[in-house]
């Protein structure tokens, strides 16, 4: 299978936001899904239709080594998953309690928690990271007798660092609910969700699982720990005015996103066919090519020179990130993402809240393009330095 098939002059290095291009088989599967009779499970008299939702649930569960597919819940993405888990946990948990998170988190975690904090539901501790990592000891030190919830990103979308989720889980008592956000790791590294020890694991489909935007999900170990915050039709148990308590209906209300669910399943098949050995080797080649090209420049600020997943946060001295991003895009055709990356706390620590340029390849990226991006940034940094002398 050819990993590199972009026929375009532009170099897309913004996969941490959303992956592009999508594999042809994903695009074809979405198109077929829209052309074929809808597989409306439980909502159609057409007995010949397939049930792509259940098939996708089984394939996705197997990919993450989850034993019971019905514990894999489909949502519109990581943000909806996190909101359902955070607010659902709050709805289930009586009284005021304590929550721990980290400064690496995305606003899809920080904003729901801030709202709960402002509404006096919770007190919040934010564990600081060091060089992109939180330690299990520091997370454990933040626990008090009121702690009920810990939420930690599995892979930082700014630093590209993978957090020690299993180590953090090891010393937790059963009262504490542990959520990991796998938005950046799912599809990049092999993940056995049950062995991480988490109570819930959050996924998004449109990044490194190569599905379309609008599909994601979460796996939950014990569904009774979370109240459903959405109620509606499930196509089953329709005489019951209460949301069904069984899975997946407990958390899935409304017509499923069939094209999205099919795209997720097909993206996972695509990744499975490539295999994590090849994915890992390819992404390492991209990382090496980029950092080799900038390693000798003292004008390029490297915030995370040895990332675990290929996310490269950098800045150029004496040039703001937005201008640098503009130049890279307009002069060199290199598409990055500049700014705070929806993760304001880690930017407060590393860039004083100013933001940076983030480059993020995927299995579709030619490592030579990463080398070119690194050389271009080094060259630009040198020109800026000479101009400011």
């Amino acid at each position, binding site marked *: 299978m050819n990993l590199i098939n972009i026929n375009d002059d532009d170099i897309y290095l913004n996969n941490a936001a959303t992956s592009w291009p999508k594999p042809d088989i994903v695009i074809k599967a979405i198109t077929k899904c829209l052309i074929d009779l809808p597989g409306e499970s439980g909502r159609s008299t057409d007995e010949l239709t397939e049930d792509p939702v259940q098939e996708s649930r089984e394939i996705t569960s197997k990919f993450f080594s989850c034993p019971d597919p019905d514990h894999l819940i489909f949502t519109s993405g990581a943000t909806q998953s996190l909101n359902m888990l955070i607010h659902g946990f709050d709805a289930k948990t009586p009284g005021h309690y304590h929550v721990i998170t980290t400064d690496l988190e995305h606003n899809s975690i920080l904003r729901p928690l801030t709202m709960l904090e402002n509404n006096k539901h919770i007190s919040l501790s934010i564990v600081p990271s060091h060089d992109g990592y939180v330690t299990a000891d520091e997370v454990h030190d933040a626990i008090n007798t009121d702690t009920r919830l810990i939420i930690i990103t599995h892979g930082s979308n700014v630093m590209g660092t993978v957090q020690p989720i299993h180590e953090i889980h090891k010393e937790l008592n059963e009262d504490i609910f542990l959520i990991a956000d796998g938005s950046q790791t799912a599809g990049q590294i092999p993940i056995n969700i049950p062995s991480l020890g988490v109570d819930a694991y959050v996924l998004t489909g449109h990044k490194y699982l190569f599905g379309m935007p609008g599909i994601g999900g979460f796996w939950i170990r014990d569904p009774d720990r979370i109240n459903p915050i959405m109620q509606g039709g499930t196509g089953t148990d329709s005489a019951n005015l209460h949301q069904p308590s069984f899975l997946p209906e407990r958390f899935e209300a409304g017509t499923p996103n069939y094209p999205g669910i099919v795209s997720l399943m097909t993206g996972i098949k695509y990744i499975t066919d490539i295999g994590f050995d090849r994915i890992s080797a390819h992404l390492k080649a991209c990382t090496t090519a980029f950092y080799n090209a900038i390693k000798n420049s003292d004008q390029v600020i490297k915030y995370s020179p040895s990332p675990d997943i290929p996310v490269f946060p950098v800045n150029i001295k004496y040039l703001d990130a*937005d201008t640098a991003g503009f*130049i890279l895009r307009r002069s060199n055709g290199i598409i990055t993402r500049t*700014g705070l990356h929806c993760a304001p706390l880690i930017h407060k620590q590393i860039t004083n809240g100013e933001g940076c340029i983030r480059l993020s390849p995927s299995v579709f990226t030619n490592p030579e393009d990463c080398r070119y991006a690194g050389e271009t940034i080094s060259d630009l940094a040198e020109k800026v330095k000479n*101009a400011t002398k």
Partner: protein
Amino acid sequence: MSETIKEVKLKQCSDGRIKKEYLLPYPITRDMISNLKPAGEVFIMDYLADPVFTIVHGTDFNVRGMVGKKIVAIWYTTEKMSDNERFIISFFESFVNNE
């Protein structure tokens, strides 16, 4: 919106600003950029093969473009975007009218 200056992209930035890209009917010249000096701090990066310019008006707006190209990108603070956009559009339109 102007009939000659076309807004081609709009984006809500993570820091709360609005970024808009405009397509002008003519390439931007150094004279035009010089005329914008009263609007903010002008900087032209002549050391680049395709010189990029920035015009920074405090935190209100921030213009980026390339000399000789028709696209400009402008980052606005939302509170004053309406007035500032009107000013910038009228500025670029004045060059159309002068042609």
